[in-house]
């Protein structure tokens, strides 16, 4: 016992004391906000109705089966008419496989957070609810052209300036 005559404890206490004079690294969330990653796989899927051809690749690639798509059987203007496009965000695991799979770049993951709902039923989004809007921005996941326009991600690496060697 006391192999180091208590010097180990003193060393440890010097570390905690040093930290007393460093700036904290936490962020006070509602007031201070960080930029999420440009590729963030954030809440809610965003669907581009014009580009969608109704091929159903997204539904096939979804491991959870949360995308429900029903289309017409006839091809009009090189597209199927999408009669039903419904995503249950309650089942979605935000893996991004549908976004990667879509051959026509018609699906995006959302850039937004704070999209919580009070009722589970409200998580089922159908056609209109899936379109892009001001609070539903698309993220740059698997879409480098979208990512280029988003603000740079805030990193803790850049914030932590309190270190003194």
């Amino acid at each position, binding site marked *: 016992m006391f192999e180091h005559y208590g010097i180990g404890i003193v060393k440890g206490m010097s*570390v905690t004391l040093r930290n007393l004079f460093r700036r904290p690294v936490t962020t006070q969330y509602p007031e201070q906000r960080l930029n999420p990653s440009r590729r963030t796989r954030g809440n809610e899927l965003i669907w581009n109705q014009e580009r969608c051809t109704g091929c159903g690749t997204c539904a096939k*690639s979804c491991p959870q089966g949360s995308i429900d798509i029903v289309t017409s059987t006839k091809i009009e203007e090189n597209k199927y008419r999408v009669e039903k496009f419904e995503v249950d965000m309650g089942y979605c695991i935000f*893996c991004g496989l549908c976004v990667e799979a879509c051959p026509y770049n018609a699906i995006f993951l959302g850039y937004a957070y704070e999209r919580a709902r009070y009722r589970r039923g409200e998580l089922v989004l159908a056609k209109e609810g899936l379109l892009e809007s001001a609070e539903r921005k698309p993220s740059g996941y698997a879409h480098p052209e979208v990512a280029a326009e988003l603000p740079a*991600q805030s990193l803790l690496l850049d914030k932590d300036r309190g270190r003194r060697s």
Partner: protein
Amino acid sequence: MTTKTTREITLPTEPFAVNIGPAHPSTHGVFRMLTTLDGEVILNMEPIFGYLHRGIEKLAEERTYGGCVPLTDRLDYLASMSNNLAYVLAVEKLAGIAVPERAEYIRVIMAELQRIASHLIAVGAFLNDCGAFMTPILYMLREREKILDLFDMVCGQRLTYNYMRVGGVSQDIPEEFAPALKKFLKEMPGWINEYEWLLKENEILLARAKGVGILTREMAINISASGPVLRASGVEWDIRRADPYSIYDRFEFDIPTGKAGDCYDRYRVRVEEMRQSLRILEQALKDLPGGEVRSEVPHLIRPPAGEAYSHIEAPRGELGFYLVSDGSIAPYRFHVRAPTLINLTALNDMMRGWKVADLILIFGSIDICLAEVDR
């Protein structure tokens, strides 16, 4: 003269059973230890699993080979990248798919960053179990956060990365990744030194962890322990060196081992492994080639009928995937060789005779992730 044990010389009392867990601050969520105590001394301990069993092996049989990658995220959620890597390696072995050079390097970078992040949690939680009230784990979570930021930058998620794909990785790393990683590599050794100052020589920690929960070399091999638990018992067995997968044969690194196989050695091995991971990261970042990150792989992979086992050195030990294919788009059998489940085999032997406080310590030093134990 025969020495009497404490049990014999104290008053005869009745042992009593305590269920430690599933809702206990130190049982990592959902693990139950049915302990029989004599006062503070543990007479017997029986582990009870299954509170987090989600049937992932069965679920995977209904998903495509590509669609199983998000499932593997949910095995060991503290080391998702390693799980991804082990799984895609198994599918690539099964289907005979080649991977571009750049993707191999990116995979190694991710796996090593993940090892550091996971060991930070492991060491922090272990020290927290020792009773160092929150300080070490908060310091370590701070550094882990920086790694998570890097992962977030690359794949857009902080916990369930779903980054590796059969035949490569999902996307190339963004251009701001390399400078950020360089900065991280530059400052991380300083932080590790600070953790060492904080508790490495602390007398109380030495008294608590040295010689406690010894897993001998023979026992460690016999129970198929792997990862830091095996190496702390003095066995130099690292799959990155013994059976190099991906491109690990190109990097220089040491395999830290312990001598006694006690809790303190397991803690030391993890800290040293973080340093070695930093070395590998530096080499990988230096040699990172250009080019494609994903080879042309059909959307629905149909590997030929057969079976493959591929294992990697995950932060918690040998993580392997045994896949059987019947030629369809979904695995016929998907078995996970979960390192932490097997590492727990000798838990009872390591704990018997120690006190309640040591139980938590020994359990913490094995570093398990219940999501992987139960699957």
